[in-house]
Every structure is written in structure tokens, then in C-alpha cells.
């Protein structure tokens, strides 16, 4: 276990040590203490390592993550796991706005609540939120799955492309071109898997969710509407 005191050694030293881990490494377990809400903790990691952050983080923790498993033993500031490529990010507390924004792959788990714009423009990432999500979540989301055990705020999935949104609780309102869709067998399978990997299988069952997706009226050019353009 490599223990890194962020207060004593500083962010640049941490991130350059983590960036130096390429491919195979025998330093597979890292612990970051005294994060004190600092920005960009463990951003840009590209190695199959486990990193545990003991406390709350500021902007962009675990941004662009590839391969690593990053656990935050506290809450995360804005843009956690932004543009994640692969790997896993697990937050014990809450996440601030635009968690998992533009993420291309991997799994983001938020055990508390996520605030506004969770999964905005997501492009393949899977996000599991144990609590609620705020307004404008999954705005222009392109692919991947957003699973919410609690409630969703206003304008869920506005201008949605092909991401799948699963919500167990209430949805305050759906955004433009986002509609409820039927749950088919493959959706139960996706949920079964994500609830398990998202450490939420003891809290919820796949059949308790409703699915929301794109009505596909907005992003396809429709010749009948040509005069309106």
C-alpha cells in the first residue's frame, strides 16, 4: 500500500506518481490522505490500480480515468469522473454537479445523491446513483446507462440520444424528446448487472425501475419539417 499525504506532498507529486504507472505495476494499492477538497485528485490515471481517497474531493477528481478503481470515502465536488474512459469510480457520499459528464466508459457509482447535470453528454459510461439526481441530468446523453435508485429532478434526458435512463423513484419532469419506454428482458439484465456492480443489489430490484429514452423526434432530420429549418 502506497500512502500519499496530499497535505504534505501536494497534488502535482501525487498525480505525477500516478501518471508514471503505466500498464503493469506492482504498486497496485494507493491511499490518499488529507484530500481536503483539493481539485483534480487522481485525474488522468491510466493503470489497473486501486486508489482510495480518505475524505472529500474538489473539482474533477478521477477525471479521464482509465483502468483504475478509485474510491472516494467522502463526497465529490463538481465534474467527478468527467470523461472517464474505463475503470470504476465509487463515491461513498454525494456528488456535485455534472458527475460523469461526457464519460466514454467504465462505471461511476454514487452512494449518496448527485446534483444537477449528472451524466450530461455521457457517451458510453455506466452510472449508478443510490440516491437522487438533480435537474438536467443526462442532457444530450448519447450512450451508456444511467441507473437512479431515488428520484430524478426536472428535465431528465433533455435532447437525449441513445443513452438508457432507469429511474426507480419519481421523475419531476422529462426533458424535450425524452419519453418513458417499455422494459424488455435485456433491460432487466442490464439492471441486474449494474445494480450488482454498483453495490446496490441489496437495495433495489430491476423490476422496480422504469426506463426512459429518446423519442428520436429531435435528432433525426425530418424532411416534412424542412420548411421549419
Amino acid at each position: 500500500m502506497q500512502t500519499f499525504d496530499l497535505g504534505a506532498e501536494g497534488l502535482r507529486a501525487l498525480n505525477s506518481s500516478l501518471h508514471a504507472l503505466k500498464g503493469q505495476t506492482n504498486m497496485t494499492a494507493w491511499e490518499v490522505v488529507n484530500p481536503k477538497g483539493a481539485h483534480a485528485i487522481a485525474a488522468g490515471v491510466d493503470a489497473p490500480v486501486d486508489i482510495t481517497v480518505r475524505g472529500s474531493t474538489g473539482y474533477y477528481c478521477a477525471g479521464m480515468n482509465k483502468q483504475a478503481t478509485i474510491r472516494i470515502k467522502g463526497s465529490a465536488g463538481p465534474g467527478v469522473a468527467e470523461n472517464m474512459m474505463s475503470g470504476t469510480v465509487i463515491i461513498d457520499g454525494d456528488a456535485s454537479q455534472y458527475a460523469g459528464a461526457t464519460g466514454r466508459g467504465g462505471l461511476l457509482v454514487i452512494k449518496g445523491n448527485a446534483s444537477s447535470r449528472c451524466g450530461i453528454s455521457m457517451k458510453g459510461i455506466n452510472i449508478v446513483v443510490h440516491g437522487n439526481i438533480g435537474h438536467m441530468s443526462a442532457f444530450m446523453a448519447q450512450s451508456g446507462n444511467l441507473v437512479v435508485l431515488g428520484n430524478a429532478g426536472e428535465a431528465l434526458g433533455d435532447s437525449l440520444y441513445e443513452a438508457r435512463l432507469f429511474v426507480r423513484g419519481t421523475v419531476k419532469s422529462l426533458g424535450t424528446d425524452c419519453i418513458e419506454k417499455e422494459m424488455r428482458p435485456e433491460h432487466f439484465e442490464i439492471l441486474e448487472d449494474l445494480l450488482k456492480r454498483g453495490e446496490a443489489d441489496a437495495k433495489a430490484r430491476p423490476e422496480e425501475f422504469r426506463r426512459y429514452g429518446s423519442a428520436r423526434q429531435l435528432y433525426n432530420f425530418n424532411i416534412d419539417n424542412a420548411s421549419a429549418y
Partner: protein
Amino acid sequence: MCGIVGLFLKDPKLEPKLGAMLTDMLITMTDRGPDSAGIAIYSGAKDGIGKITVQSAHPGVDFKNLDLDLKEAIGKPVLMLVKSSHAVLEVPIDQIEAARSALAHLRPSLKVMSTGDCIEIFKEVGLPKDVAARFDVSKMSGTHGIGHTRMATESAVTTMGAHPFSTGSDQCLVHNGSLSNHNSVRRELRQAGMTFETENDTEVAAAFISHKLHEGDSLGHAMEATLTDLDGFFTFVVGTKNGFGVVRDPIACKPAVMAETDEYVAFGSEYRALVNLPGIENARVWEPEPATVYFWER
């Protein structure tokens, strides 16, 4: 950007440390706003005494014998405490308006930062650590206080453009964001009798709330009204003689974190600003919801 910090103490034992706690929080927010910084401190009111905080670009000239000149003008005792470019003038509470008029005549270049029973506002251009040191903020005690680090967008980097803005007795407001309808709201408020010192958008928000309070609205209602009448991006933190409030616009893209314990309620633009507060590990920490008014009054 801009950084906001605020503390509303519930436990009187922390009151002597208010300035030190706020200074630490303010300096942490330097990279959100290195242009200028300011702080509003509310300390216990003295019976029958009111305070006027004034600022001067030429303190050596303006503050010389100011207490004596003011005493002669209003015919009542005046106590003056000079802190760098600011001075706090203590006068009998019923003499505040008379003293303000006299000051405008005696020292026309003085700017009034605040008036009231217990508010003092200190603000200047410069790095937060330098501004805090200049006014010895860390030694100040009080019941609640609000600080701001500014990254200017809407108007010039000047002392008067720094936050907090005070537009009513014992009232102040700081802002992260920008307002788009401030010119029309300013026009309406001017017609309603409010006066303005700057072209700054935040001053309009402060005056908007002061006007509502003057009309008899509660702090909660006045803050609620900003959600319908002010257009733009905002996280506001508001102080009154005995209250402390927070409101964010419905889009809520300007960050805000709050923490509450039995000892205090704290506000920070980021969690970083709160990490050194006593008992923060066990505090209730949350993000204020969009379009929701939070306030505490003692």
C-alpha cells in the same frame, strides 16, 4: 468565478474566533477571485450606538481630525477607529443619518461602506490575504460574517466594485455570478427611491433585497423574490443584523456547499473553504438546492 465564504455562529464561544475562521476560509478561495476581497462582520451591538464604516482613497488626509469635525457637525460624541483605508465611526444610533449627511459635506470623497448597529464592511482591491491582513480581519470577533473574493466580470476592478455590498442598515449581500437585467431593475429601484453608488450588477441585487425588507417583507420572502425578478446566474449570500441567508438561481451552475453543526452554519463556494472548521468531519454537509431559500435567524 468568485468565491464566497460565510459563517453564522450558534455557539457564542466561537465569537472571538470569527475573524480568524473567516480569514482562513477567504484565503482558501483566492484562486476563485484574486482581484479584490471584502468582508462584512457583525459584532454585538452597543446600546444606543450606531456604526458607519467609511473608505477613503486618501486616508491620511480624509481621516485627519474626522472625528472632531464630525462631532462638531452633529453636536454629539464620535468615536473613530481607523483601519488602513477604512474607518469605523461610532455615533449615537439616532444620529446615523445626520452623520451621513455631514460626512458628505465634510469629506465629499469618502465612500460609505455600511451603516447600522453592528455591521462593519472592509473591502479593497488586491489578493484576499493582503486585504485580510490590511484590516486585521483575523483579530475581529462577531456573531456572523460574510466574505467574498472577486473575479470581476460585470464592472471594473475597483474598491467600490468589490463585495460585500450594503444598501440598507445592517444589510449586506455577496454574489457569485452575473445578472442580465440589472439595468432595468436598477431603474425601477431608483424610481422607488433607492440610491446607487456603482453600475455594478450585484449592488442591484443588494438594493432589491433592501427595498423588499424596507417594504416590510421578511428576509425569506425578499430572497424568494430574487428568483422571479432577477435574471441571470447567481448564488447570493445575504446578511442582516440577526440573520444569514443563501439562495441560488434555478440553473444553479454557481457552486455552493454548506455545513451545519450545533456550533455554526457555514457557507463556502467549495468544500475546500470549510475543511479547517472545528468539527467539520461530523458536520452535516450539503449543497443548497436550486431555487430554494435557506436562512437562519437568531
